């Protein structure tokens, strides 16, 4: 029951910090730059620097560490697997441990740790973006960034609208699934025991009503939008125009400096 409540990706953590108030385009751009940096720099030292940067931003946004780390939970398995694969397959350096065909070399250990940290930082940095930016602001920013593509036939507005609607309905559908699950549990349904096939079959009482309600909702939403004369992006004005402010300027400057520092830290180390 409670497992459905643990989905953090796309979960906004409200606040009123400088980070929250930054233009979504700035945050999107800097997040992409940060991810690029993660792949460009080599060595542990710049990673420590970048991690400190993330923690600093989280501190300014007053997002608790615990909340940021929640996004990692579903990825524990992948991160662990990445670590183990590299530890056992990368050769070189000093052999630390050997048992039959299994061997751990110092390079493998370093490589495994490095790539796991990269994955963790990737997830934490992107969840910092979604935690401090409301989904609406995020798609607004995205629409702006994609709008030059409209000349090439890219339906920027429609894509952004689809994303907005999808994001908007994630919590609704989770709630709905939760409710149906409880209703079926009350009728003695069993979602937790049995083999893979039996479990998949047991999900039917959850999935059928969920699909029925999702279609009904989609239908109602389309009606409601048309009733309010929605006709796509053409000639559409906005209530809140995105506006760069001086804090965006400073965010670009300071982050740019920090990224350059990370790059040279990697070269130097």
């Amino acid at each position, binding site marked *: 029951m409670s497992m459905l409540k643990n989905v953090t990706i796309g979960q906004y953590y409200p606040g009123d910090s400088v980070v929250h108030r930054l233009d979504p385009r700035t945050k999107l751009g800097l997040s992409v730059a940060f991810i690029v940096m993660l792949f460009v720099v080599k060595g542990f030292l710049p990673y420590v620097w970048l991690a400190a940067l993330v923690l600093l931003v989280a501190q300014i946004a007053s997002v608790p560490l615990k909340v940021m780390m929640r996004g990692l939970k579903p990825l524990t398995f992948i991160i662990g697997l990445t670590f183990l694969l590299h530890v056992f397959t990368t050769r070189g350096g000093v052999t630390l441990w050997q048992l039959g065909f299994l061997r751990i070399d110092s390079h493998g250990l370093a490589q495994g740790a490095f790539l796991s940290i990269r994955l963790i930082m990737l997830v934490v940095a992107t969840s910092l973006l979604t935690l401090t930016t409301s989904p609406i602001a995020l798609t607004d920013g995205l629409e702006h960034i994609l709008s030059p593509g409209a000349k090439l036939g890219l339906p920027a507005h429609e894509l952004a609208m689809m994303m907005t609607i999808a994001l908007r309905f994630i919590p609704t559908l989770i709630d709905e699934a939760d409710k149906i699950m409880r209703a079926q549990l*009350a009728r*003695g349904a*069993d979602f937790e025991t049995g083999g893979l096939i039996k479990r998949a079959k047991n999900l039917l009482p959850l999935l059928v*009503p969920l699909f*029925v309600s999702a279609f009904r909702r989609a239908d109602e939403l389309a009606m409601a939008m048309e009733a309010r004369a929605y006709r796509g992006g053409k000639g559409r004005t906005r209530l809140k125009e995105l506006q760069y402010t001086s804090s965006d300027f400073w965010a670009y400057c300071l982050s740019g400096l920090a990224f350059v520092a990370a790059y040279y830290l990697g070269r130097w180390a």
Partner: protein
Amino acid sequence: MPINIKNLSCIYSADTPFEVRALDGISLDIGAGEFIGIIGPTGSGKSTLVQHFNGLIRPTQGQVLVDGRDLADKTTDLRAVRQNVGLVFQYPEHQLFEETVFADVAFGPKNQGVPEAELRERVHEALALVGLEPEGIVDRSPFELSGGQMRRVAIAGVLAMRPQVLVLDEPTAGLDPEGRDELLAQLGQLHSGSGMTVILVSHSMEDIARVATRLIVLAGGKLVADGPPRTVFTQAKMLTDIGLGVPQVTELMLALRERGYDVPAVALSVEEACATILELSYRGEQR
């Protein structure tokens, strides 16, 4: 089957900015065979409270005993509890999923392990209890029924498990007046006929005043009143303050009293109010 609740609290989304204290120190004893109405404004914790009755929410603070079994205890068989305490959610028709009405109503008993041979009897009995003619409906798809029929089929799905306690969360929401009256009458029959404990959650005073023999009022997660409807409705001011109000006929009685007429403070049904007023005018003529 008694349900005993001691000092129950429930907090949603603890340690986040969304933290909500849904229940706050609720203590309550529900005896076998009672007909209880739980009322409270939206967000008062009604739904949260009733989900504690069958262990859908495990108590984290305080204690819930169902027939003496502690629901916080990890070794308690919750499926057995859920079999005895049937819970009908809001808009229960949204949980229908099977191809036929028969299969959907039989879902609960099947999960209980009721043998195939007995299923037919159970399904027919449950459908009859909610006022549906079993023969004409069992082979139809639940999705082609009318809204009111779907609601009844969904309630039958819970009744087919033969619970000793039946909890219904806003069962009349979205029904037309006729459908609502029928459903409430059937609940009354269920209660008097089988001695089932019925717990009705609603924010409609009118509905509850007519059928319940005991009223529990929640506001902001706290229990603010508990007693027979007549006693609870005398606290008209408190009920209005928390956003509930009293039944219209009780309001009428109160207005009459304010103007100096000697009438009882509470009326639970239109018929009762009617009789009181007739008597009043009769006395007036005599004077």
